[in-house]
């Protein structure tokens, strides 16, 4: 059987828990909020807005469609910048571990603001311009990105494994840092391989 002192302890405990419960709205203002993991997602979808049917064997003057998307899970609004870059197998990709972007020049860029928990997605139409092949090298003069002509001036060497001229179209995600008042590489990139082929 419980003694009077045991009952006293139970009463004290219940009083303390009740007081804590009643003061929880005020405590919510004082205690720091739980932030959780902060991250951004970057993705590329095929022409049917699915992760399939990505263009691979590409020809000059044909339009290809992709969907590019960014999801904000940074627990606050963010200012994003996406650089569109092009590389062949020998050129450098961004280094996620070191946090350094690819040294290649950006062909195109997208800038936008996004609230926390929201997704930015837009269709991207692109076509290749001035594609020529000489002595095992493919020359690409430029691209048309969303109706805008962009010079590329790339040389792509042939790859015997796939018997073609592979080139990676990739997207680097950058984020505005209010501390440094500038954009910093957000350690995210995504790309698709394209194989330059001759017009029939």
């Amino acid at each position, binding site marked *: 059987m419980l003694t009077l002192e045991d009952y006293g302890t139970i*009463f004290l405990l219940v009083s303390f828990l*009740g007081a804590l419960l*009643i003061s929880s709205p*005020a405590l919510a203002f004082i205690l720091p909020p739980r932030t959780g993991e902060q991250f951004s997602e970057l993705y590329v979808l095929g022409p049917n807005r699915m992760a399939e049917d990505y263009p691979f064997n590409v020809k000059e003057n044909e339009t290809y469609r992709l969907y590019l998307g960014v999801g904000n899970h940074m627990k*606050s*609004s963010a*200012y994003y910048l996406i650089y569109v870059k092009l590389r062949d197998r020998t050129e450098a990709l961004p280094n996620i571990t070191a946090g350094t972007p690819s040294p290649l020049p950006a062909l195109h860029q997208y*800038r936008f603001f996004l609230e926390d928990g929201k997704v930015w997605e837009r269709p991207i139409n692109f076509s290749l311009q001035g594609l020529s092949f000489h002595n095992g090298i493919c020359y690409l003069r430029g691209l048309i990105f969303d109706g805008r002509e962009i010079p590329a001036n790339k040389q792509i060497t042939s790859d015997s494994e796939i018997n073609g001229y592979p080139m990676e179209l990739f997207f680097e995600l950058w984020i*505005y840092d*209010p501390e440094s008042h500038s954009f910093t590489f957000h350690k995210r990139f995504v790309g698709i391989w394209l194989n330059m082929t001759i017009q029939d």
Partner: protein
Amino acid sequence: MIENLHLHRKRILRCILLIFLLCLSNLVWVSPSRCGFADFLQDSESSINLAFEKVLEAERAGANVTALVARLNEAVDLLVKANLLERNGKYDEAAEAASAAAKIAREVEDQALKLKDSAISNREFAFKISIAGSAVGISAFLFFMSRLWHRFKKYYVERILACKPEVAEDADT
């Protein structure tokens, strides 16, 4: 004949020199405006960045910034447009787009400051209310618990006293 040839060469040289000077003057005349325009675009971009920083501050203070984020997207679209127009040599249109972007950015900055102030004062008011509510609530609850405890203690003691002591038959063993 030779004199004519010399004269002809001199004329060609003069023409080349004239063209060179024209190009140079054009270069000298165009460069500052382009430089100035680059600064102008840079200023618009800085205004947008600053406006975003203010929006972030307002958001952290608890304000709803959905409308401001939408306005900032308008501004950044105009800035991108201004950059493209500048590259195509359409300076007047580019300047128009860039100044419109900067104007939106300034408006957003002002609104963000107001929203931040209003969010801070709302938050302070809510905090005071919750503190007062908690104080009243806790006092009432503790008073109720102390009353309950006294009643329980009284009931417990009465129950103990009401118990009759009984002597066991084999108490000595």
